[in-house]
């Protein structure tokens, strides 16, 4: 349960803020004002007005029917129920092609480095595609990660066509019988339609190199991002049909609540979470563990 402890440590701030504040409410009898306070706490944790409302309304109706005696257990159950989807990353084919997208500065390249390490430790051969041909030194950054994790790197010149890089990476991975291909892309704000079109193209071209690829399209979200995370997910989803979320920087954020908002609004499962700086701190998301860690010691 080493990871559980790390998760717990990483979520310490969330716990003290979200649950710590909620715990003073748990001892009171459940009434409208207690529920209102609870809703405020949820909103403050970036859960978002819509998801917060659903959780609160569900508890309210249960309370009206039979009376909720244990508010803490009820809240825990609601959150777990909302999150309940731990599909993870299933290797359906070989090479298993993962495309990683997101806005600027959320930690795409770093997450890819950590994923590469994880697959390497599991004894797999990994190919990384340096598809961020735009940002200064992005290729060099991925190159360093490739060296650290013994992965193959496929790169072109800075400023070249990212779709071509992705294509070459998939072809070369098939030829070398690599197990996993992870395609990096340049960070782009979801409001830039021409850049979003480019993503569509990368996606399409990967499909030409290998039928049914990419098998996973993961959106990287920064946990400190507020409600705009939903807008990002919606727009990216429209362009490339996302299969899941990687949630990063969860250790610095006092609120892990965005996880609930994303699941509620988009039905997109969180597949990986980053709870620390260490290479091993990117882990499969487990909703039970996540909620357990949140409510530990309360």
């Amino acid at each position, binding site marked *: 349960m080493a990871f559980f402890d790390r998760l717990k440590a990483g979520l310490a*701030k969330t716990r003290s803020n979200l649950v710590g504040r909620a715990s003073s409410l748990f001892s009171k009898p459940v009434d409208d004002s207690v529920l209102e306070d609870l809703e*405020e706490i949820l*909103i*403050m*944790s*970036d859960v*978002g*007005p819509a998801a917060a409302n659903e959780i609160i309304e569900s508890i309210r109706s249960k309370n009206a029917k039979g009376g909720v005696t244990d508010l803490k257990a009820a809240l825990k159950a609601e959150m777990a129920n909302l999150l309940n989807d731990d599909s993870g990353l299933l290797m359906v084919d070989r090479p298993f092609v993962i495309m990683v997208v997101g*806005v*600027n*500065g*959320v*930690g795409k390249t*770093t997450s890819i*480095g950590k994923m590469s390490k994880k697959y390497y430790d599991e004894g797999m051969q990994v190919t990384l595609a340096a598809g961020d041909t*735009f*940002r*200064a*030194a*992005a290729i*060099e*950054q991925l*190159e*360093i*990660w490739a060296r650290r994790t013994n992965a193959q790197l496929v790169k072109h010149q800075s400023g070249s066509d990212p779709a071509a890089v992705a294509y070459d990476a998939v072809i070369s991975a098939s030829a070398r019988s690599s197990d996993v291909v992870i395609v990096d892309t340049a960070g782009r*704000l*979801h*409001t*830039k*339609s*021409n850049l979003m079109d480019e993503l569509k193209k990368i996606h399409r071209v990967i499909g030409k190199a290998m039928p049914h690829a990419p098998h996973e399209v993961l959106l990287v979200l*920064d946990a*400190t*991002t*507020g*409600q*705009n*995370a939903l*807008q990002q997910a919606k727009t990216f989803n429209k362009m490339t049909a996302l299969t899941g979320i990687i949630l990063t*920087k969860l*250790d*610095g*954020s*006092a*609120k892990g609540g*965005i996880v609930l908002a994303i699941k509620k609004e988009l039905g997109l499962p969180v597949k990986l979470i980053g709870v620390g*700086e260490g290479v091993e701190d990117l882990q499969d998301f487990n909703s039970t563990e996540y909620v357990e860690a949140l409510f530990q010691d309360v």
Partner: protein
Amino acid sequence: MFESLSEKLDGVFKKLKGRALLKEEDVAAAMKEVRMALLEADVNFRVVKDFVEKVRSRAVGKEVMESITPGQQVVKIVNDELVSLMGKTHSGIRLAPNLPTIIMMIGLQGSGKTTSVAKVAKTYKKEGRRPLLVAADTQRPAAITQLQTLGDQVGVPVYATREKDDPVRICKDALNKARTDGHDILILDTAGRLQIDDDLMKQLQDIKSTVVPNEVLLVADAMTGQEAVNIAETFDEKIGIDGVILTKMDGDARGGAALSIMWVTGKPVKFMGVGEKLDPLEPFYPDRMASRILGMGDVLSLIEKAQDVVEEKEAIELEKKLRTNTFTLEDLRDQMRQVRKMGPLQSVLGMIPGLGPNLKNVDVDESRLNKVEAIINSMTKKERRNYAIIKGSRRRRIANGSGTTVAEVNRVLKQYIQMKKMMKKFKGGGIKGMKLPGMPKFM
């Protein structure tokens, strides 16, 4: 940027606008919506509470009740409170009496520090100063290479040593170098860190006490949620900040972070980062931002930008052309270039009053403007001055030359002719150099 918030407030006030008199329960209903809108805009909860209370206490007072247009009154109150919340006027960077002025940039990972460093450098270089950039981010792989590349792009030298060197030492050595080489601005790019990482926070304190910067700027992402307050508060408490740079303002984040940070730290937002291109940073004016939040546009910034890129002489000449109706395709091309010099079109359009919310779903496709320019470039001088001679075979040649189709050439010509017609009707008044009645058609 803030359009979504202004839309929300618009909705609230539309309900109020129909009423002659405000009842207390009307105000309560409006305040509830203001509260939700602000929360959804990621304004911090504590700030929202304080803000709504202020507005409510003023709104239920006589001022509104007796006013003939209560809706407008509430808009005014919200606007006033927003301005006072974000600080009253724009505050820039104070230059040090003894050279060099040292600017230290700090923030979370991925907030946009390195890009902002390059933009600040560009801003000062434009003023004729000699900045030196310092690569003190030894943490992230290739961060030094990134700063070197950006330094090359803006034409500013970068002080860098091997990775793994001690950042405190790097900064100290860079300061000595700046003094010897006569640089007047020294900008430190530090590694991104979480505010709860005590070791790395200690390192920042060490850098600060060693080089004693004149300005410590916190770089914060405009998309930050409720956490913005904790980030700003902790960095201010542990390091002490003088101001904030708010980045990624070209996204559609509602930007509540801007409101929150100032309220909690009392420190001003000094600049905004818009776009990835290495344009200078834009100053942050709270009054204009408040107007923007309320959907009243940002005309002042627009005029300033226009003045920046439009030469007075050119403007007078253009005015004359408009008056005498000798506006040629060549002039159209110059106009387009000038408008585009003002920055990404999306951000320019966002400043035009009334357009804000309507443009939310309009895609400004810069590549279409490129096409228009290519088409005009493919014409001969004679053709540009007299469009009437452009017949079938010339159109085919222009289409081939610009890599477009005859239909696209036709479209540009048609729009140009329409523009000319409109200009005939449109004479005198307005802002110099800003007369572009038909411009939106090209987008």
